[in-house]
Structures are given as C-alpha cells and as structure tokens.
C-alpha cells in the first residue's frame, strides 16, 4: 500500500527544500519526492505544509511513577496531536532514570505503547542527587540519547565539571536546567512588578543566568557539548551568544511560552502560568526572538510538563511548576514567530526538526528518499481556539485554553502510519 501526499508545500530544512511537490510513502519509508507521483491512495495537501515530523527534545512523560499525570502512551498521543514524531523524555520520573535497566524499561514501554518515537534521556547523577555520576556508557548503550538532571541544576561546580567531562568522553550531550536555587530561594514566579503586587516570592533573572554562564564555562573546561534548556531571559540569550562566538560547544533552546506570555499571565494567581524558569517580560521575549533570528538559539522544545487538575488547583505557592506544550508548539510558533515576520516558515520548521535532532544526534527531522516516513502536514493559516478536546495528554494544564491561534496540524505519519488526523 502506498500513499501520495500530493501538491503540498514541502519544507525540508535538512536539504534546504521548500517547494510544492508530492511525497510518495510506502512501507514506512519515503519512496519518492517529485511531481505527479502515483500511489494507491492520495492525500490532497494543496495549501498545506508538508514537513518532517517535528522533534521535541524536552518532554516529561512521567512514566514510571507519575502515571496519573501522563504515561508514555498518552504523552505520545499529545505529541502526535502536535505534529511531533520524535521526543526525548526527561529522566525525573520515580524512580529517576539513572541506570540501564530503567532506560530499557522506558524504551520497552515506548515500543509497546507509544505511537511515536520516544528516546529517553537519562540522569547525569545517581538518583538525580547531584553527587555521583551515573554509568553513562551503559546508559548510552541501553538507548539514552542525552544525560540531564533536568528539573534540578547540579549544585556543586566540581560535580558538574566531572559530569561534563565524563559525558563528553561517552559522547552524550548534557541537557542543562540552569537554576541557582540559593538565589531563587523559594521563589515561584519572575521577580518584578507582578511578583511585588502579588506578594509572591520572585525568581530574579540572575538565578538562571549565573548558572547558564557557570555551566557553559565548565563545559568549555571539560571540552564537552552542553545544551542549555528553556532559556527565558535576555541575559541568558546573550551569554550563549558570547559563548558561541568564543567557540564553546554550546547549543540552546527556548520554549513557546517564553515568547508568547509574560509574567503578567500569573496575575490572579493563575497556576497555569507557573513554570520554571518563570515567564519573564517583553524585553526578554524580544531577545529570545533575536536569538532565533541570529542562530544563538538552535531549537524549540516544549518542556511538556503535565500535572493533574487537582495538583494545579491549589495555592499558587504550592502548585507544581510546568505546563503541557506538545499540542500547541507548532501553533504558537506560527502565531508568534512566523506570522509577525520574525522568522520564515522554513526557519520555524528547522527549529522544530533539525535543530533538536542535531543536539541529541537523532536520526529524525528530515525528509529524504528512503528515510523514515515521519511526516507532519499542517495548515499554516487555519485559526483555531484551544479547547481540552485538542489535547492528547492526560492533563490539561495549559495557559492557552480559550486562546485563538493560527497553524493547525492536519495529518501526522510516523514510519508511514497515520498517528493523527485532524477531525475538525
């Protein structure tokens, strides 16, 4: 059985392709790309963009341990809804993914239950305690594509240095959650006028920036590849820019909420606007956009962080950090980066495909003949209002409910199998 995705605007950042053509899919692979192709079935993609399945290298699927928030099965459904066909799952589960057996558990559960490709990241330190190194060579052999203590920063600079040296030897990138917890000191939102008005303990930008700088410098000392996760501040972007200029092996990402919302969203004690790092201010959004434009930022990742309704429907101070993001990533990118003209559609697709794939050396994020048929078809113009029915996730902790966005995922294929079809 073969399928022709016909007359779509095919965008493949890896090859620089951006033109109207057909894509022929058979046996889970792309067989041909060109004009007037024939197959058993045809999908009319006129007016739609056809691109590689998106890649998100920072998601929390919560399995094992927190299955009431999300599972690998439901998380992968959320991904498919958002046009994402490859994810890297974070290791702060319970137990944390800090040995090869647990990496194998995640990959096995993914094989059994996920409709998309799930690649685990593993802990950099045992129990994510920031003390002893994990057996990274074995973790890699078992299938880990990165090491990270995401959710926490490693407090000791000496331990961080050793982690980076060892990860560098093994050839795994370190995904760095940058936070000086001494400085953030129990803070739960951006420190500024909104935290002052709300009487909520703030987290100054510097709590993130100091550690971005420290962690990059230690990676330089170690000669290792470090990837800075979810940058939220103008200063953070500048630190990465300067480090790249001097030749550091650093890559960096930001998440859609950091360029589509500000700290003002937390007013009224909205726990769906509580995440780490916190939502910042307009000047930070401008700097993040500039970071995408000049290549300082390499990729978009969602930090998809599901929490149940009852966990979020509590006092602001007590609510867990994080929001879901897989289902809205593409639309927030189209709405806030592409449509206002900050970046081209091709660049946006690159940030959501090759960018993340390169960070973790994933075989994903490109459309080529004989490559896997991981394909996302979306309408860059279609407007839609976010409702809980749009979520594949087990949770619905999104600040975008009720928001109208442009850019809607229509069809998603993973290894040629349809994993999502828009029913609207």
């Amino acid at each position, binding site marked *: 059985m073969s399928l022709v995705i016909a007359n779509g605007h095919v965008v493949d950042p890896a090859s620089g392709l951006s033109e109207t053509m057909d894509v022929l899919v058979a046996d889970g692979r792309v067989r041909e790309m060109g004009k007037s192709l024939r197959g058993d079935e045809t999908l009319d993609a006129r007016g739609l963009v056809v691109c590689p399945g998106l890649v998100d290298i920072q998601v929390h699927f919560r399995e094992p341990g927190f299955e009431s928030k999300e599972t690998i099965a439901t998380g992968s459904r959320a991904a498919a809804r958002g046009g994402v066909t490859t994810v890297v799952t974070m290791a702060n589960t319970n137990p944390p993914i800090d040995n090869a057996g647990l990496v194998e558990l995640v990959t096995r559960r993914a094989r059994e239950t996920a409709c998309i490709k799930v690649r685990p990241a593993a802990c950099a330190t045992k129990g994510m305690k920031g003390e002893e190194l994990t057996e990274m060579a074995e973790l890699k052999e078992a299938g880990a594509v990165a090491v990270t203590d995401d959710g926490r920063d490693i407090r000791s600079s000496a331990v961080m240095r050793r982690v980076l040296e060892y990860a560098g030897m093994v050839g795994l990138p370190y995904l760095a959650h940058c936070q000086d917890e001494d400085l953030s000191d129990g803070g739960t939102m951006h420190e500024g*006028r909104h935290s002052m008005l*709300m*009487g909520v303990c703030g987290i100054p930008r510097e709590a993130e920036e100091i550690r971005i700088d420290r962690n990059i410098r230690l990676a330089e000392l170690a000669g290792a590849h470090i990837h800075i996760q979810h940058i939220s501040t103008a200063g953070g972007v500048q630190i990465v820019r300067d480090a790249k200029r001097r030749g550091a092996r650093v890559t960096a990402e930001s998440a859609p909420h950091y360029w589509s919302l500000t700290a003002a969203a937390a007013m009224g*004690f909205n726990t769906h606007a509580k995440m780490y790092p916190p939502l910042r201010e307009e000047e930070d959004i401008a700097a993040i956009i500039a970071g995408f434009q000049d290549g300082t930022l390499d990729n978009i990742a969602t930090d998809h962080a599901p929490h149940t309704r009852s966990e979020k429907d509590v*006092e*602001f*101070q007590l609510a867990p950090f994080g929001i879901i993001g897989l289902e809205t990533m593409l639309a927030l990118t189209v709405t806030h980066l592409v449509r206002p003209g900050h970046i081209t559609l091709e660049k946006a697709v690159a940030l959501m495909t090759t960018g993340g794939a390169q960070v973790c050396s994933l075989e994903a994020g490109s459309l080529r003949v004989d490559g896997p048929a991981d394909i996302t078809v979306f309408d860059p113009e279609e407007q839609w209002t976010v409702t809980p029915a749009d979520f594949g996730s087990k949770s619905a902790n999104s600040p975008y409910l009720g928001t109208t966005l442009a850019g809607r995922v229509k069809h998603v294929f993973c290894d040629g199998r349809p994993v999502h079809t828009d029913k609207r």
Partner: protein
Amino acid sequence: MAGTTHAVWTRKDLVGIADLTREEIEMVLDAAPQFGAVSQRASGIKKVPLLQGRLVVLWFHEPSTRTRSSFELAAKRLSADTLAVASSTSSSVKGETLHDTLANIEAMRADITVIRHSCAGAPHLLAGSHRSHIINAGDGRHEHPTQALLDCYTMRESVRRRTGNPDATLDGVKVAIVGDVEHSRVARSDIHALLKLGAKVTVCGPSTLVPRELERYGVGVTHRLKEALEDADVVYSLRIQLERQAKALFPSLREYIKLFRIDAESLRHAPDHAIVMHPGPINRDLELSTEVADGPRSVILQQVTNGVAVRMAVMHLLANSGGAAR
C-alpha cells in the same frame, strides 16, 4: 466625593484592595460610622440584627488574635453566629485541599467565610468557585484589605478632626510607611487604598526590605527616615518580623533601631500634627518606642476600635447588598 453615597455595592467577595474602585472604598468608609455608633450605644446593647441567623465562619490558617477577635466581634455585633475553624496544616502539601475544606464549611451553610492563609492568593483561589462570601483576612504577603480599610478610615477621621471639615478626604494627605514593606500584606493593601484615595505615599526601610518596583506606581522610596518623615501627615510603622533577621535580611536589631525606629527623636522631623499608626502587635522599643506608642500622637488603639466598625460595614455590605451568594 459627595454623590458617591448613592452607589450600590455589587461585589460578592472582598479578596483585595487592588480590585476595588475609589467609590467602593469610600462606600465602606462612609458606612463605618453608623456601625461604630453601635459599639458605643449608651444603652449598653451593642448589637444590631443585620446578620441575624447568618453564619460567619472564621477560618484561620495562621495564628491571629487581633484580626480574628475583631472579625468575631464584628459578626456578633451584627447578630450573626460565628464558628471558628482552626487549621494547623497551613502549608502542608498533602491533606485536604482548600476547595474541599471550604466545601465542607459551606455544607454547614456558612454565609460568610473569613479566611487567613500563609499563601498569597488563597482567597482568590476560592472566591471564584464557592457559594459563600469570602473575606480575605490576610493572605501571605499579598493583601489584608480590611486592615487597609480601617487604616484609611482612621486616617480620614484624623484629617477631618484636625481640619474641622467633616467631608475632608485623603486627597493630598502624605503618608510615610516605615519598616518591612517587602513582606507586609498591610503595606501592599494600604498602598493600593491610599493611592486610590489620592494620598501621597512614601515608603522607608532597609534596602533589603523595600521593593524598588514600587517607584513605578508613584510611591516614593527612601532609605532615610528623616526624608520620609519630613512632611508626613501620617507615620505608619510596620511590625518587624523577627524571623526576618534570622534570614539575615538586615544586620542587627540594634542597627535597625538606629536607622529606622519611630521614636521621639526621629519624630522631631515630622510635622507637629502627624499621627502615628501601627497594625499591631507592636514590638515595643524596636520599630516603635514606648513613649510614642503610648503618646498623644498615637492612634493605634483607635485603629483597633475602628477595625470592628469597618469589618461590620464590610460584612453588612457583602451579605446584604453584595452580589448574591450562590
């Protein structure tokens, strides 16, 4: 602001001053004197039947003597029944949620729920989705709206007495708030209320305890007490919470006293007519000297007396003309 007396109270809850209009604040202040009079009746029968048969629940997650007593007395003088719900698990993550506790309270047919909680925003979390009228009696460092209302009422009374003008407002009145502004819900609510009422506010305290962002809202910020007091009509001393020093937010009580204490000496910089206020409880001779606290400029006990009247006014407005309880 005559003419606003015809305005109608429409709010179901009182969770903060930030949401109120000037007219709403004045509605409470204008309603308070009649309730003050109830407490001073020559007959000795200090009660009116305005909330007869209603249930006011006092739900305090934080220790409080004065605010809780003031609310309880206010409810009783309105003839309401009161029920105190103590909760020792103020910020426990596990255990019953706020929603569940309030649902249980309301299942006992509470009409008004007065809540104090250590987490900013706790009353806001509840106000949107529950039936009873919620009154915020202090949430973390966020707001303490009835304190601000009784403070403004006390200031207005003083201005009216001093000027002999029974319609005088707080427009142009200069208020110096001194102490730990950063951690003070009283300061936040007072600042909101005073700015809405046209007063000029200056805050003063150690740089570690005064948020700089206040300047954005037209509040003067200084770290020199003399400067703050120079033209103040009202000197408002905040309580120094002793645990702050444990967190090393200022070097010593000794140095705090030297730089920021309101005492006879520092008050020399203030105009003769300036009154001295404090939300209580006072750390005697720390933020405020005994001679000033007990002296002729102090209106601290009037604040306490007015607190009952203002809280009666608030409960009456919410329960009898406010947005209907659901």
